[in-house]
């Protein structure tokens, strides 16, 4: 058995008692005894079926008391797991790190983190996520959530297209908090030195940059909404983008060599995207965008190129009904913000928060375009956006490599 120093003292005795485990599953969302009691009948049979002859451990927050089990071979291990909230990703990192260190101590070969707070994972979710890692040699399996017309907008308008264009993989939801991963990936992460910028990117981007095998698993529900302590949109956007932009800066050597993008293996049944056409009210979003164009131009001007600023001024004069923000313009804006973030043109917090009106402008334009389209056309619309990100990547590359050649 490996050293116990890396795990909290309260759990050491239990870890010694349990011994080794092949699979460790963490369920940080089960804070209370009732939640844990409800989750166990779902998860324990699946764990037993996944590893009929090998031990597995279910890690739950020590705030929940483990009920007496009736003959299940699954070992329950209370652990001080921090609650996972998507917007407070630092706690997700802590939870993941705890899981990895514990797994290393117990000699686990696969790990599963079921982090969704508002949509508790079912036994089927656990099985579909764990199988590719346990049985098929993948290093990371992440959920591919069922699409929503106006859902996961930060992901579909910024995170997914950027990760796809820069890292060359069509990984639909890099920010997933439910994931399964191998001991190889866990070892890399645990052994990585904790630096000032440790909280960058997500496990998915790290696995891609390390050249590990990544796959997706269909999930028949949309991504869970933000945690109960969700701050305002501007703060969420700033947090997510700061994490992504820091990762882009950290991995510049990798993504500068990548061209195009490749699909990755997807397991499971895609289901039927069931969203219906609905009319939307984008008046407030357009108004915020117009206000931004009026008041924030002096903040945007050191970041955005002159051509982009001219375009924005033109668009700001359009009425809500005919409002459109072209994909190319949106991509240029984001690439300029990545460069502005890197060069610290202004305070990073201010820079990222100043993107909110532009983001709302894009959302308004997208919503007006797709409000009456069928699901396939919505997918095609998002694919078109992704292709724009890929097409304009040379712009980011040239400005990243030679920032002095362009001075807005």
């Amino acid at each position: 058995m490996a050293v116990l120093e890396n795990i909290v003292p309260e759990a050491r005795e239990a870890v010694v008692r349990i011994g080794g485990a092949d699979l460790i599953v963490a369920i940080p969302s089960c804070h209370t005894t009732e939640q844990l009691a409800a989750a166990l009948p779902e998860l324990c049979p699946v764990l037993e079926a996944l590893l009929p002859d090998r031990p597995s451990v279910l890690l739950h927050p020590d705030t929940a008391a483990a009920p007496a089990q009736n003959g299940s071979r699954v070992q329950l291990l209370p652990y001080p797991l921090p609650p996972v909230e998507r917007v407070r990703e630092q706690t997700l990192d802590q939870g993941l790190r705890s899981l990895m260190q514990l797994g290393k101590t117990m000699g686990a070969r696969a790990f599963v983190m079921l982090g969704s707070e508002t949509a508790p994972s079912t036994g089927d979710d656990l099985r579909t996520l764990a199988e590719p890692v346990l049985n098929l040699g993948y290093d990371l399996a992440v959920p591919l959530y069922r699409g929503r017309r106006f859902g996961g907008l930060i992901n579909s308008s910024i995170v997914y297209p950027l990760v796809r264009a820069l890292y060359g993989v069509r990984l639909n939801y890099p920010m997933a908090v439910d994931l399964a991963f191998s001991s190889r990936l866990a070892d890399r992460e645990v052994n990585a030195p904790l630096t000032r910028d440790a909280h960058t990117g997500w496990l998915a981007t790290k696995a891609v940059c390390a050249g590990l095998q990544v796959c997706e698993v269909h999930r028949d529900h949309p991504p869970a909404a933000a945690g109960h302590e969700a701050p305002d949109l501007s703060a969420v956007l700033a947090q997510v983008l700061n994490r992504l932009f820091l990762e882009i800066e950290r991995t510049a050597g990798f993504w500068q060599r990548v061209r195009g993008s490749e699909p990755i293996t997807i397991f499971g049944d895609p289901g039927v995207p069931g969203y219906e056409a609905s009319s939307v009210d984008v008046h407030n979003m357009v108004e915020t965008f117009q206000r931004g164009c009026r008041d924030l131009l002096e903040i945007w001007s050191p970041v955005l190129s002159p051509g982009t600023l001219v375009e924005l001024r033109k668009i700001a004069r359009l009425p809500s009904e005919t409002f459109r923000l072209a994909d190319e313009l949106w991509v240029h804006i984001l690439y300029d913000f990545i460069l502005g973030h890197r060069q610290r043109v202004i305070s990073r917090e201010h820079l990222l928060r100043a993107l909110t009106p532009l983001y709302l402008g894009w959302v308004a334009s997208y919503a007006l375009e797709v409000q009456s389209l069928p699901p396939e056309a919505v997918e095609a619309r998002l694919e078109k956006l992704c292709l724009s990100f890929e097409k304009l990547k040379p712009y980011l590359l040239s400005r990243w490599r030679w920032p002095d050649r362009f001075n807005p």
Partner: protein
Amino acid sequence: MFDQVKQALDESTTRVVTGLAHLLPGLLALILAVVISFAFATLFAFLIRRSLRGVDFDGRLASWGWSGLADISPAQSPMLLIVRCVYWGIILIGALIGVAAFDATVTQQMVMRLFEYLPNLLVAVLLILCGNIISRFLARGVLIGAVNLNLPHGRLLSLGVKWLVIVLTTAMALENLGIGGRIVELAFAILFGGIVLALALAVGLGSKDLVSRSLENQVSPRDEVSDGQFHHL
């Protein structure tokens, strides 16, 4: 009679010439000190400019998040600001040394008082500099926040915050310099109160909807990142 006038004139001429003769070394010392300080200032400015340019000082400062300093620097270059501060600082010291060379008690006292006053002056300059940077930072933050909240008077609010900080730091600097006394305190209180009242009125009257929305949210909290039809995460 004529002899007495002549003697008086001679004595007066002798006094003036003697006075001038006494003054001349001091004057020469002043000129020499200023010339030498000019030479030193030019040399130091050249060396500092060269070494700061060598380490890309402006770029590094911007990458450390001190880009606000560029706004108050000549030609948007903090390097130039430092070089000029050093240049004129050396010349000022040279001039003070030169003035101190005069054999005059009053001049010496003046120089001593100036030297005693120098720390206060430096603190005041630092206060105003910091106040300027902080005011710009806060004003920008308030403006961005106001626009994101779709507040109608974001610019006014931002300007108000900026001037609040500037007025506060200027009053602190003046008090530190011992200028104005009670008048500065009084003027500061009136200005500060006036700005706060103006902001409160402007925002309060212009943002009734926002306040009522905020109160509604407190009664029935909703997820800000999923706004009705739109789910951002």
